[in-house]
Structure formats: structure tokens, C-alpha cells
């Protein structure tokens, strides 16, 4: 867990991201090559062609979520051990935000950087705001994403409270719930910021 005031928040670990995407591709390519060169037929060929492909698919679909959830649980217990009061936790797909309102602290863990966790004073948060994703005018106004954002040492962190591949009216239940969650989180950040040391 990184707590130092100089530590910059890193949302994406490039090595992890590239490894996550390309390692299964490389493994598949090696297996295909071995199959082509040494086992053109038979059971071994089937294993070398099907096995890595299937495992890669499983890896891409489930591994990210599994690693993130596991690391998130570890992080939460670590925070508890280190006297961090987990008063407000917001679980989003790309980032989990935990706020200690009493001591004005913020804890962060990112989906694409699950091995580095951050515990920072809310003094380092310059501003927090809501983005309702509204586009269009009049009856055509709608959104497909609602989020709350904040900047830590100038680095913008976006936490989605609602995402959809469709566009919803601004008065739809989904959008209103998303806005309400985002408004609530921004208010909590602002309140906690006043108590930051």
C-alpha cells in the first residue's frame, strides 16, 4: 500500500495490461507452432490447438475480475489493520474508492493496476465533480454513462456509477440512480476533505 505524499497515483500498470492481453496470445502462438512442427495429427495436436485457446478465453473473461476482487479484499483487510475507518466504499468496475470520513483519507485500487494500492490524504484531492454524460437537447437529451470524478495531484480519476451501451433519457430510473450515487460520493469527498490532515 502506497501512502507517501510523493507517490503519484497510477491508474494503469502498462506491463500488467499488455501481459493480460498478449501473454495468452504468445502462449497460443507457441503451442500452434509446436503442433504444426512436431504434432500435426493426433491427441497431442488437439491438446496443443484447443487447450491454450480455451484457457486464453477463460483468462480474458474471468481472470481480471478474479484478480481485482482478490486484491480488493486483501486491500480492505490491510486498511482495517492500519486503522483506516472504511466509512464509505464505492465498488465500480474500474476502480474501488474507499473513504475514511473521520480522518479525511482516501483509499484507491484500480482494475488495471491491482498490485499497487493507494492510501492518500484527501488534501491531495483538488476537486471532485459529477459528469452526467448528458448529450443532445430537449427531448433528445440522454446519457449512457454517469460518473463522479476527482483529481489527485492533478491526475483525473473517473469512477462510473452507471454505464450502458444504450442511451437513456435523463429522467430514467438508471440515470437518476447514477446521478444520485455520484452526487452522494462527491458530497462525501468534499465533507471528508475538510477533516483531512
Amino acid at each position, binding site marked *: 500500500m502506497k501512502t507517501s505524499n510523493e507517490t503519484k497515483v497510477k491508474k494503469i500498470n502498462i506491463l500488467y495490461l499488455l501481459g493480460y492481453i498478449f501473454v495468452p496470445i504468445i502462449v497460443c502462438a507457441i503451442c500452434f507452432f509446436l503442433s504444426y512442427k512436431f504434432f500435426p495429427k493426433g491427441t497431442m495436436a488437439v491438446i496443443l490447438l484447443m487447450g491454450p485457446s480455451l484457457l486464453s478465453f477463460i483468462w480474458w473473461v474471468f481472470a481480471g475480475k478474479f484478480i481485482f476482487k482478490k486484491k480488493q479484499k486483501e486491500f480492505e483487510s490491510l486498511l482495517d489493520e492500519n486503522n483506516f475507518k472504511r466509512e464509505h466504499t464505492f465498488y465500480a468496475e474500474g476502480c474501488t474508492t474507499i473513504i475514511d470520513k473521520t480522518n479525511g483519507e482516501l483509499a484507491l485500487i484500480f482494475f488495471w493496476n491491482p498490485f499497487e494500492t493507494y492510501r492518500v490524504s484527501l488534501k491531495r484531492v483538488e476537486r471532485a465533480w459529477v459528469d452526467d454524460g448528458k448529450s443532445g437537447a430537449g427531448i433528445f437529451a440522454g446519457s449512457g454513462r454517469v460518473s463522479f470524478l476527482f483529481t489527485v495531484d492533478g491526475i483525473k480519476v473517473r469512477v462510473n456509477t452507471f454505464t450502458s451501451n444504450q442511451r437513456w433519457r435523463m*429522467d430514467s*430510473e438508471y440515470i*437518476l*440512480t447514477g*446521478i*444520485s*450515487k455520484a*452526487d*452522494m460520493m*462527491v*458530497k462525501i469527498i468534499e465533507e471528508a476533505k475538510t477533516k483531512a490532515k
Partner: protein
Amino acid sequence: MNLFQKIKSKFKDDVCEGCGGKCTETFKQLYMLDQTVGHYARYENPSYYKKNLYKVEKKTDIPSGVYACGITEYTCQECHKKLVKLSIFLPVRDQEMHETPVYYRNGEMDDFIR
């Protein structure tokens, strides 16, 4: 009560379900419900609301992401039957996201609103 009044009473709170007579609002108050956005659960038990409702003067007194509950009591001018409606909603900026209302017809909330 004719069929038309019976149908009307199903859709309008100010029409008595018993006699079809006109009902008047005899009590109206806004409360804050101790539930937050994303964690709403509907309860039928009146004791839950008695424990978890807090009187507020206006909607802006309710913090963001917290549910509101408007209690309205209707009294029939003819048969004096009472109906208490709990309109539960989430205030979001200038809009409201309403949940299915809860009705009490047998005076379950009388000790709370009086």
C-alpha cells in the same frame, strides 16, 4: 358505490375505497427515510417506518443519495374512513424517483403521525 366510482378509487387516492366519497388530506408531512441509493428495500411492516423516518421541513434538508418519504393521510368526508399513503422517493436534484407507495388502511400509522 357504482362501478365507475369503484374503478376511480383504485387509481385516485382522494376517492374513498369504501363508499366512493371524496377524501380530504388531513395530514401531510415530509420525512427522511433511513435508506440510501442502491440499497432500497420495501417494507410493509409499519413499525419499520416508525423507527426509520425522521421529520424534515423541506426536500433540500435531505442529504444526496438518501430516500425521502411523504406521508399523506386522507379522510373520507362521508364515511370518515382513513387511508395513509407513504410516497417513498429518491430526490435527485430537481427530480424525484418514485418507488411503489405503501398504504395503511387500518390506522397502523396513527400513533406516529398524531
